[in-house]
């Protein structure tokens, strides 16, 4: 056991820090956030950032070199996460493509699919979305019913997806469909890569509680999918979907939560109540200490999971803990932040934080639903780690 980083790893960190300093958008580190008021401008801005990352060689950090990646070790990825969190770097708009679709294609895609799709995922030329949930298939994802029916040398897609992030701007969709209804629900699911540029696919933005509209309902009305865009075997898409969600679970929010904690400490030093800085109030000090303890616990546990993954090569069910535990931490932290505002907590965009803290407060409540609710994650832990009996 050793918590020191090697010289090579520290060099990697320095290189990244320097690159970020030179390449972050103008004014970013002074707190300017361009394009946040206008959704279209915001997408444009994030696409630019994706290209900047790619030109710097950072976009496909964990991708193998043969696909244009940097072949970074897991620890280098951890360092990347730490450093980008430290400067609150812009979001990676094509995270679905880079973190999930790309790795899945490398693992299960055909040579043609890899050649056709991988380069444009990295460059951000093609944005991806993930067509999973349906109105009647949420936590019980395998009961999905959007149908893909053979029609000559193509398939016709009919049905609806929901909660599809970035579907309104995505070029392609990693889509779970039903190709056989006769057997058990985990059988008869097929994954297609679907071109979103079709008139028979309509997206309707969903108004979220944050007032944002990042996700959508997506309606398929005789839209077309092709044989060469099937991932894995026909009717065997459930395994493909599970491959993808394993990659999803190896991520952690803990570094951005840690950064948020640091910025709240600054806030507490700079703002006063009853004639002294918040940071000198006993209850504030103690709450910050308790939150830091939880963040450390989450971070160190993440390191332990990563160390284990270095040995086994695959993320384990421990990733479920990462999600649940750190999500609880984030909620505690953001609720604490709101209380720091005193009665101004009642204000939204007119608050001292211009409303950003409201988004920060609300987002974790959504994150604990997306990609498997905390209840689903607890089932995973109880069944796969502790050997408790499965739900009926």
């Amino acid at each position: 056991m050793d918590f020191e980083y090697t010289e090579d790893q520290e060099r990697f960190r320095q290189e990244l820090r320097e690159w970020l300093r030179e390449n972050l958008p103008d004014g970013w580190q002074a707190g300017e956030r361009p394009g946040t008021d206008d959704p279209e401008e915001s997408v444009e801005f994030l696409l630019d950032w994706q290209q900047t990352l790619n030109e710097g060689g950072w976009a496909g950090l964990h991708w193998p070199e043969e696909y244009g990646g940097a072949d970074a070790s897991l620890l280098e990825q951890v360092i990347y996460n730490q450093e980008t969190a430290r400067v609150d770097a812009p979001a990676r708009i094509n995270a679905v493509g880079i973190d999930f679709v790309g790795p899945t294609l490398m693992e299960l895609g055909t040579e043609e699919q890899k050649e056709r799709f991988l380069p444009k995922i990295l460059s951000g030329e093609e944005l991806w979305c993930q067509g999973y949930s349906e109105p009647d298939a949420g936590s019980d994802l395998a009961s999905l019913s959007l149908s893909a029916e053979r029609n000559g040398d193509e398939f016709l897609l009919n049905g609806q997806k929901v909660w599809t992030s970035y579907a309104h701007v995505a070029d392609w969709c990693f889509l779970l469909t039903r190709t056989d209804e006769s057997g058990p629900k985990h059988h008869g699911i097929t994954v297609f890569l679907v071109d979103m540029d079709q008139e028979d696919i309509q997206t309707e933005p969903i108004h979220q509680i944050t007032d944002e509209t990042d996700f959508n309902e997506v309606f398929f009305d005789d839209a077309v999918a092709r044989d060469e865009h099937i991932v894995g075997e026909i009717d065997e898409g459930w395994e493909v979907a599970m491959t993808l969600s394993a990659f999803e679970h190896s991520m952690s929010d803990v570094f951005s939560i840690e950064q948020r904690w640091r910025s709240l400490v600054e806030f507490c030093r700079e703002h006063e109540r009853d004639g002294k800085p918040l940071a000198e109030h006993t209850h504030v000090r103690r709450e910050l200490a308790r939150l830091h303890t939880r963040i450390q616990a989450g971070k160190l546990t993440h390191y332990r999971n990563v160390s284990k993954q270095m040995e086994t090569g695959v993320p384990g069910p421990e990733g479920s803990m990462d999600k649940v535990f750190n999500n609880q931490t984030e909620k505690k932290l953001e609720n604490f932040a709101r209380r720091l505002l005193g009665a101004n907590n009642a204000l939204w965009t007119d608050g001292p934080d211009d409303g950003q803290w409201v988004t920060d407060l609300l987002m974790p409540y959504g994150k604990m639903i997306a990609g498997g609710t905390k209840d689903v994650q607890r089932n995973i832990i109880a069944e796969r780690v502790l050997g408790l009996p499965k739900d009926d």
Partner: protein
Amino acid sequence: MDFRINDEQRQMRETAREFFEDREVLERARERIDGEAVVDDLWADLSEMDYPALTIPLEYNGLGDDVLYLSLLLEEAGRVALPAPLPETLAFGAFVLDELGTDDQKEEFLPAIADGDRRLSFALYESGQESLPRDIQLAAAPTDDGYRLDGTKTLVPFGEQVDTIVVAARTGSGTGMEGISLFLVDAERVDSEPQDTLDRTRPATKLHFDDLIVDEDALLGTEGGGGSVLQKAMDRYTVATCAMTVGAASRAVEMSSEYGSQREQFDKPIGQFQAVKHRIADMWMATQAARSLTYYAAWALENDEPDAARAVSEAKLFCSEQLTQVFADDIHNHGGMGFTSEHDGHIYFKQAKAWETFLGTPTEHLDRIADSHEL
């Protein structure tokens, strides 16, 4: 950075687990609860495995292992509520000797500890309400050829089952870190009174020092200069108790998982009900988190990292606030059985509760964490 335990550490843990099971250590903890004397025999067993030699330096016939290694062993010890002063002897006693002892003192004590011939504990509390080490008041007045100790100590772990007690006293007046002196006192020379403890696997003793005269060479380190090493020893001991609590918590998670899979109500195993299943998943998560904090604290202490003191407080805070809940949940998961003395849950629960405020309440640790961030 690598958070894995290595093959040797893994091997040591497996051996320890088998050994503790083979020697029925948990059964002996129950005997200890019933008031039987178990420490002498148990110590002979531990010595067979060289466990008392673990952190003693090589030059004093020890094995020269570090706090992290000791923590891994104590995690196994915690699973069986080891009713013996191993944390006291190694994490505290041997550490202060190694830090402050003269060559003669080291020569006298360390090889004897390593050989299993000498056990140590510490006497710190006086009222049991005070904040340590700041409020230590027991008077040590210099005499011509030694010191006169006067006052009462309480909550001395295994006070009647050890050979030597490290006594913290004050030479001079006032409060604070300055003026604290540590003395090695032969346990037999002190008037002692056993105390009934919440965690009966670990006895405690009240010690009356009525103008007890000790020799000059009983002093550890310099007169009045023992405060900072005492704080470090308290930190090591705290991490040792965290490691035992983490081991106990893993055992609680296992017991709940096993019971949840076997016990049926409404025609199915109760572990199939999410109310139970999710509670056990939460117990597991808390245990994992506490383990991460504990390992890091041990590593940070060993390497004198700048955040070592904070890391200790964070591990202790988390164990105190979150793991007591794990033990409470285990009792609850076992229903009526959980409330019987037959189920092991209460042993761990009581130990965790007893340690919750020992050598620092959660509030004191919160303040220490806040101080370390210059808040």
